[in-house]
């Protein structure tokens, strides 16, 4: 595996965006932002909701040591994540490959992605630069953030499968391109700015996807998944704006 220390130090940095002249653009890793322009980091959030409840995942899965269970599963996007998302596109075959035998990396999941860092440095640079150039010019920006979302979903799911023994269900990912546009009740997403001033792309996955990803979770994975009724989530919103928005969304959905 390609582990050039420069690449590692560059691509493990959190992605930054600057809002300048009414436009938002990605900053290069060593770029100094213009004066008086707000700079944002970018995050992805995953929520899973059944009819009248949310799923909370145990810290045994996420290993963040912040709380026992998490309804809001959030990841910061790094330059490495962006590079992988730019590289993979929305190719379904990427999502079908779950390398369950590879180690779990909490800090740099992108390091284990599809051999992108197996190439010689020149080739890595060429791929990343050509892809990122497109991103930086904004042509692929929105698609890219969608890719990031699915990329993190896959990472999270892969992690869940390795730690719990849950069978990796390729069908879900094969279906993504097919059913997402048709069955919007199963997948909702939005972008918002959170209370810490971060740009968040958040998604809510509903019943059909949950049942495919975590079959019989209420029997087989009791140690890892907790069902939190909407009424309880409503009482524990705290400073989580993402949860405030999705709780409102889940009220009276039908």
């Amino acid at each position: 595996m390609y582990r050039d220390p420069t690449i590692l130090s560059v691509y493990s940095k959190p992605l930054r965006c600057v809002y300048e002249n009414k436009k938002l653009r990605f900053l290069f890793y060593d770029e100094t932002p213009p004066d008086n322009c707000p700079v944002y980091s970018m995050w992805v959030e995953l929520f899973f909701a059944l009819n009248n409840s949310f799923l909370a995942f145990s810290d045994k899965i996420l290993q963040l040591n912040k709380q026992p269970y998490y309804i809001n599963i959030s990841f910061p996007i790094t330059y490495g994540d962006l590079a992988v998302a730019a590289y993979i596109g929305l190719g379904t075959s990427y999502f079908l490959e779950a390398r369950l035998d590879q180690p779990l990396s909490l800090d740099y999941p992108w390091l284990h992605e599809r051999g992108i860092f197996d190439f010689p440095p020149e080739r890595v640079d060429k791929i990343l630069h050509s892809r990122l150039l497109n991103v930086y010019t904004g042509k692929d920006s929105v698609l890219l953030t969608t890719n990031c979302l699915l990329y993190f979903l896959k990472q999270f799911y892969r992690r869940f499968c390795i730690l719990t023994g849950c069978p990796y269900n390729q069908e879900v990912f094969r279906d993504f391109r097919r059913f997402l546009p048709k069955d919007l009740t199963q997948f909702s997403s939005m972008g918002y700015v959170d209370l810490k001033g971060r740009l968040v792309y958040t998604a809510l996955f509903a019943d059909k996807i949950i049942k495919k990803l975590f079959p019989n979770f209420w029997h087989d994975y009791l140690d890892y998944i907790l069902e939190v009724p909407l009424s309880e989530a409503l009482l524990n919103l705290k400073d989580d704006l993402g949860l405030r928005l999705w709780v409102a969304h889940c009220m009276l959905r039908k």
Partner: protein
Amino acid sequence: MRVAAIPRNALISDEGWQAYLDAKNAEGWQAYLDAKNARDHDLKLDYYEHDEIEECSDLMQIILFAIFHSPENLEKVCIFTLPDGTKTCGVAYHITDMDPAPPGTISFKGFEFLLNRFANRSSTLKIPPEYLGTSSTPGFEFPLAELPIYNCELSLPIPVLIWGPRVSNHIVQTFHIYTTYRVRKSLYGKLDSMSMSFMDFLCLPNKDELSSLIAQRHSNWFYHLFEQDDTVIWNV
């Protein structure tokens, strides 16, 4: 001040909501039968003293947050600077049954069913006086002091955010008002000059808390990321 609120249990499950609507429907018919000269079968919301329920988590108060879009650019919304310097991107209203409605509230003559929601009968939205003369353009007074709300223009509730100054017991619903059809063309420029995008609004100091949350929710930052030109920003 009496404000409308809905029991929390009615909002958190479809069965609870259906039971609530059934009860409201029955209540409406009974009122119709009792008052022989009633014009129609009206639905009524439940109203409570605001101070008594402000910290009650079993009742969810409805907040209508009116957002006025610029007539020249729908992505921009009118920004108000209140006398104390606070900036807002809209006006928040409680729903009341008081007549006349006190400032910061709106009253409806009644509701009817529309697709499993309460649809309003006609009313008037009054902009509180502190919002009227506070645009960034000197001498310009916000021209929509009173705004007619037509039958079934609103469906309640469609929450976009849960909020509360002390307890999370407010369901906030945004009400988008497209000023193009509400003001004379000669005012378009002035309304546009007091408008900005939510992303720009978020850069301002002294923002009202609820306005901030609404702007964060509707910031639509994708739009700003998408609207790039072809300039190569990172030159490798």
